[in-house]
């Protein structure tokens, strides 16, 4: 059975992360958001202090913890004035390394110690394409073998942190969709060293307002050459290997949503106790109090699912349904908490100076990405409930 009891290590990790994050005041994040600037100083410090190695095995210079602990780090990062941007600027490394550890050959694993030490960034994961959307098997970026290397061409959209990463996990077809028996076959994972990509990848930012500090980009990939030994896992089996990454990603994002959700509720509660209108604290009105209580309850429930999913993941057991449910419940609860915090703070809730409007904007992202709530319901309907497949 999984347990939510915190070990001494978990408590020390939480405290250390909180203390590190507390060096970055709300003004820092507000300024970064305003300028649409990556929180470079913050990420550098996280890297320097070894936090990128949290779930990298000790033999590769990491701390050797698992997804439970990686998710705790992210939860603490988002439970600060940096919110989901603080965690979102850093999180991809934590889920990307899972696949490198599990399926990477020795050549690819050579990168792990440098990632753990904070000398290299593995912050980009390129799946999405315009013509495929959530229907990943429909991607058409194609890798063609030529001697000891692959030549890759295609277009990706909405790929985050490319401008601030050294390495990228690239999902491409080695067999075109029209030629495979099973639609999920023929997909292969490549470890791309962006420092060597030169002109073969054109990066164009797609600005958004839900995570203004973190770049999200269109990638035009033209004759990108990747050595054969940079294929991760088996050629043609990438779609199945990718589950390792996306399940970790969903658990981590659930944790981030829980971190921010709790933080935002504490801010709203503090305000509701002190703000007096109609001669009483607004928190005395159940119309203000009950939604906060409800948001709290939803977050607590989501947290149970998050720990269950993390426990299954860390035990090497199937956790697709749990990881999806954790992300769904946590994203919903966090968005609700942020929305109610805006309502509680009234006009100040929408003022830049309180940061609540930023949290509210940011929390919207995870209702849609990395997997939409609709797609999670599709998955559960078909795979868990056994209803006819709709997608």
């Amino acid at each position: 059975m999984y347990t939510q009891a915190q070990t001494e290590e978990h408590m020390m990790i939480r405290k250390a992360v909180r203390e590190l994050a507390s060096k970055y005041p709300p003004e820092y994040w507000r300024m970064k958001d305003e300028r649409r600037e990556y929180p470079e100083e913050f990420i550098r410090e996280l890297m320097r202090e070894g936090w990128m190695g949290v779930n990298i095995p000790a033999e590769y210079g990491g701390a050797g913890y698992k997804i439970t602990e990686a998710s705790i780090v992210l939860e603490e990062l988002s439970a600060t004035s940096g919110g989901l941007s603080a965690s979102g600027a850093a999180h991809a490394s934590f889920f990307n390394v899972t696949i490198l550890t599990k399926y990477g050959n020795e050549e690819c694993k050579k990168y792990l110690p440098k990632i753990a030490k904070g000398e290299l960034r593995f912050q980009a994961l390129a799946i999405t394409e315009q013509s495929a959307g959530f229907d990943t098997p429909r991607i058409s970026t194609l890798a063609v073998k030529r001697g000891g290397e692959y030549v890759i061409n295609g277009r990706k959209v909405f790929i985050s942190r490319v401008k601030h990463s050294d390495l990228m996990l690239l999902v491409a077809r080695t067999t075109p969709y029209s030629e495979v028996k099973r639609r999920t076959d023929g997909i292969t994972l490549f470890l791309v060293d962006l420092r060597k990509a030169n002109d073969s990848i054109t990066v164009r930012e797609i600005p958004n307002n839900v995570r203004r500090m973190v770049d999200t980009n269109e990638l035009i990939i033209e004759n990108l050459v990747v050595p054969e030994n940079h294929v991760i896992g088996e050629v043609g089996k990438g779609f199945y290997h990718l589950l390792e990454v996306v399940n970790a990603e969903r658990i981590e994002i659930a944790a981030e949503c829980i971190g921010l959700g709790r933080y935002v509720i504490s801010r709203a509660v503090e305000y509701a106790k002190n703000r007096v209108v109609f001669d009483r604290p607004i928190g005395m009105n159940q119309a203000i109090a009950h939604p906060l209580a409800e948001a709290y309850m939803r977050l607590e429930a989501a947290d149970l699912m998050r720990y269950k999913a993390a426990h299954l993941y860390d035990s090497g057991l199937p956790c697709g349904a749990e990881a999806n449910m954790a992300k769904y419940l946590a994203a919903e609860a966090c968005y609700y908490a942020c929305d109610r915090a805006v309502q509680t703070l009234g006009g100040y809730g929408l003022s830049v100076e309180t940061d609540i409007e930023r949290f509210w904007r940011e929390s919207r992202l995870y209702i849609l990405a990395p997997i939409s709530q609709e797609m999670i319901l599709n998955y559960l309907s078909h795979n868990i409930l056994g209803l006819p497949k709709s997608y």
Partner: protein
Amino acid sequence: MPDIVVCVKQTVDVYQLKPHPETLEPVFSQAQSKISDFDLNALEEALRIREKGGGRVSVVSAGPSINQLLIRETLAMGADEAHIISHPLLSTYDGRVTATVLSKLVEKAGRWDLILCGEASLDNSDYQTGPRLAEIFGVPHLAYVTKLEISDGRLKAWKSMEDGLHVASCSMPAVVTVGLEINTPRLPSLLMIRAATKKPIHEYRLSDLGLTEEELNPSVTLRELKALKVERRRVKLEGKPEELAEKLADILVREALAR
């Protein structure tokens, strides 16, 4: 390669303490416990000495109920091992009791060249532990140290005093007490947290230390602990800004002279 023992005290976080509105007694239930600030400076200094010259850093702590997590955090900062005792009688103590118990823990830590302590504790501010330990072990004591160096087996200490800077030196073994100015304690890094779980925390009973309950009887007892009541005078000045400034300046000067 000096072996160092650092004394750390678990105190209530006094910054979180608020007086009860009626009794004025501090409400302890609202505050968390932490390692006394100066003691973290002492530990940091020990770690820096070890980084330069090697040696072992042990932590000792005594109290009514030691929270292992806080001790584990000192190991995560970099200490090699800990020696602790929890005993309910240690909820009331004086400088003598504290130093006696700590000296026994120091002996358990084994060979040592240097004992580092915070110059006082966050909660009681008695300034006694360091000097008393030096007395018990019959070794020199350097207090209020703001910079410390070791060369050729001797300690050289810069002490900032009210009348200026003193530079003193002594042989080891010795006791040194430090304050906040000497350094900035590090945060535990991830790998150190990981490593800390495997480091030993030795926990003792009173008899293990060769002590009896009578020896824990303090000679000084705390009778009462109350916050000072600060009443605001609520003086309201009225008039034009220029006049107000005059009046305010007058009051401030008068108050200052009255002191």
